[in-house]
């Protein structure tokens, strides 16, 4: 909580230190001094900074994040449009990274020091080394432009219409509405950016999983499980992976931070109308309420993700649960 307040203050103060004049940046054309005055009044920019900050907090408590100067809509509304898009992308990407990262890490650990291990190690290093924006461009060029395997951007084919808004995540909403073709279309659009976002986290998770699994495998209880004559599958999934899971889960917080960073780049390249694109556009247009709103949202995500990770850790590790 204190953290969130700190984040609001920092983002607010930072954005309001900008030397540019938001009125000039946002008024259509021919801004007259009186129009600038009206703009400043409307956006509360005529008051001293501490007062603006205080007002921001008051409005925040009322669920009011101010009005975006860029879109003319309430920031809360803009966020509510952008968040599901990013959430869909981020969650899919994390799921992809988890499946492959944990899988690769597990295989690497089980085949430790073998050729597979070496190849997976290189793969994981490539994953964390490749510049996301460059990978996105190459993927766009090859997979979309040359091969046409994936669509080139946006969330849905133009011929399709968005499913009824429930969660705002098109795949989920399409399923809820029972629109299979829309679901596949949304998924099709989702996969490429999600995979690109997943590359770095996949590398990260491969490494973490591998070392977590190796650490687990050194424990007597794994030898004990083998000594019980359990099948290999039970030993690997029921015992080794089960024990490594809590430490793998702790990486998810980090993975989310990576995804948010990557989202700024990937969303811009794939015309994905999410938080990354919104944040980037607001920062270039000095849309102060929007920037503050995005920062706040990201901070909330950070806090929530870390909380969820903590809870999950407790669920997975009964030793923590008791404490």
């Amino acid at each position, binding site marked *: 909580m204190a953290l969130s307040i700190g984040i609001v203050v*920092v983002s607010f103060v*930072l954005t309001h230190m900008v030397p540019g004049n938001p009125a000039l940046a946002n008024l259509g054309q021919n801004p007259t001094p009186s129009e600038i005055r009206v703009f400043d009044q409307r956006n509360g920019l005529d008051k001293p900074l501490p007062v603006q900050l205080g007002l921001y907090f008051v409005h925040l408590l009322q669920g009011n994040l101010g009005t975006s100067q860029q879109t003319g809509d309430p920031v809360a509304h803009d966020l509510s449009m952008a968040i599901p898009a990013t959430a869909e992308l981020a969650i899919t990407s994390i799921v992809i990274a988890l499946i492959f990262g944990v899988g690769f890490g597990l295989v690497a650990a089980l085949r430790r020091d073998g050729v597979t291990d070496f190849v997976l190690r290189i793969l994981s290093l490539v994953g964390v*080394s490749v*510049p996301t924006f460059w990978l996105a461009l190459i993927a766009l060029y090859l997979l979309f432009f040359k091969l046409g395997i994936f669509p080139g951007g946006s969330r849905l084919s133009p011929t399709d219409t968005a499913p009824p808004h429930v969660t705002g995540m098109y795949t989920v909403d399409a399923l809820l509405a029972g629109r299979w073709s829309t679901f596949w279309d949304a998924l099709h659009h989702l996969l490429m950016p999600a995979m690109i976002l997943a590359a770095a986290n996949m590398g990260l998770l491969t490494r973490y999983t591998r070392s977590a699994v190796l650490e687990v495998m050194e424990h007597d209880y794994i030898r004990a499980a083998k000594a019980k004559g359990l099948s290999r599958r039970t030993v690997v999934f029921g015992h080794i992976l089960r024990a490594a899971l809590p430490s793998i889960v702790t990486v998810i917080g980090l993975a989310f931070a990576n995804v948010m960073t990557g989202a700024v780049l990937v969303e811009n390249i794939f015309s994905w109308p999410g938080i990354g694109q919104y944040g980037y556009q607001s920062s270039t247009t000095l849309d102060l309420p929007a920037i503050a709103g995005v920062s706040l949202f990201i901070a909330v995500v950070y806090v929530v993700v870390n909380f969820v990770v903590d809870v999950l850790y407790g669920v997975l590790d009964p030793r923590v649960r008791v404490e």
Partner: protein
Amino acid sequence: MSTASEAIELPARYRRLPRVHPALRRPLAVTGAAILAIWVLVAIFAPLIAPYGPDVLGNSLSAAPSSAHIFGTDQLGRDVFSRVLYGARISLPISALLVLMSLTIGSTVGSLAGYFGGVVDGVIMRIVDLVFAFPAIILALVVTAVLGPSLQNAVLALVVVSWPTYARVVRGLVMSASQREYVQASRLLGASARQTLLRDILPNVIGPVVVLATLDFGNAILLLSGLSFLGLGAQPPTAEWGAMVSYGTQYFQDWWMSTFPGLAIFSSVLALNFLGDSLRDALDPHGSWTTRGGRR
């Protein structure tokens, strides 16, 4: 007291002392070091190697790779190959500087927090948490929005977001190292806390920090080029790799404009990660990708 892993562990005095650092004997480390060495040489000797100046405008605009321009030319007729070579003079030293600054600030703050503990520690870690809550690029967006886009400001922004990593790591290392029995033994022998910090604690902290810095070096190149890609870092005509990729995307069909600078970023970051990963192995054999048997 006999477990299998311990039985494998051999007293080290029976091992031959290595001539080269063990990390360097691994193939990945050698590959990484070699690629990195090439880039460093390129950075130093760019004016000698590059066929053209980085900002010299030629007459053939947007030309595909040919014998005259092996990486082609860009929209202003500049030689992409030369610009990629000169780019090493920007990305590498500036990222190194960035890492060095974050490391210095982070380590100082981290050791102070770890050393003093208590309120100082509490305040510092709060700040660290605060910075951590922003993804690097978002904070960098805001910082560059405040200060204007330039390489210098991008570095500043990234320092702002990257020092906490070091602070956190160093603090943890200092705290755990000060709990070590050999540190306590030193204290009992009459060493002051400051003496042990310098003599017993920091030397044991440096290793992990060096590894972190090596890996972070690659990360810094990525972040810096990412910011330049978004137009928030290096500004034209600076031959910066990220900016070149971004510039190239405007002319998508002229693939050479963005492919080669992208490859330059990728190869240098990969080299650093190869090296850093191997160093990490050498330092922390536990769970590392080594070729030797494990030991506790």
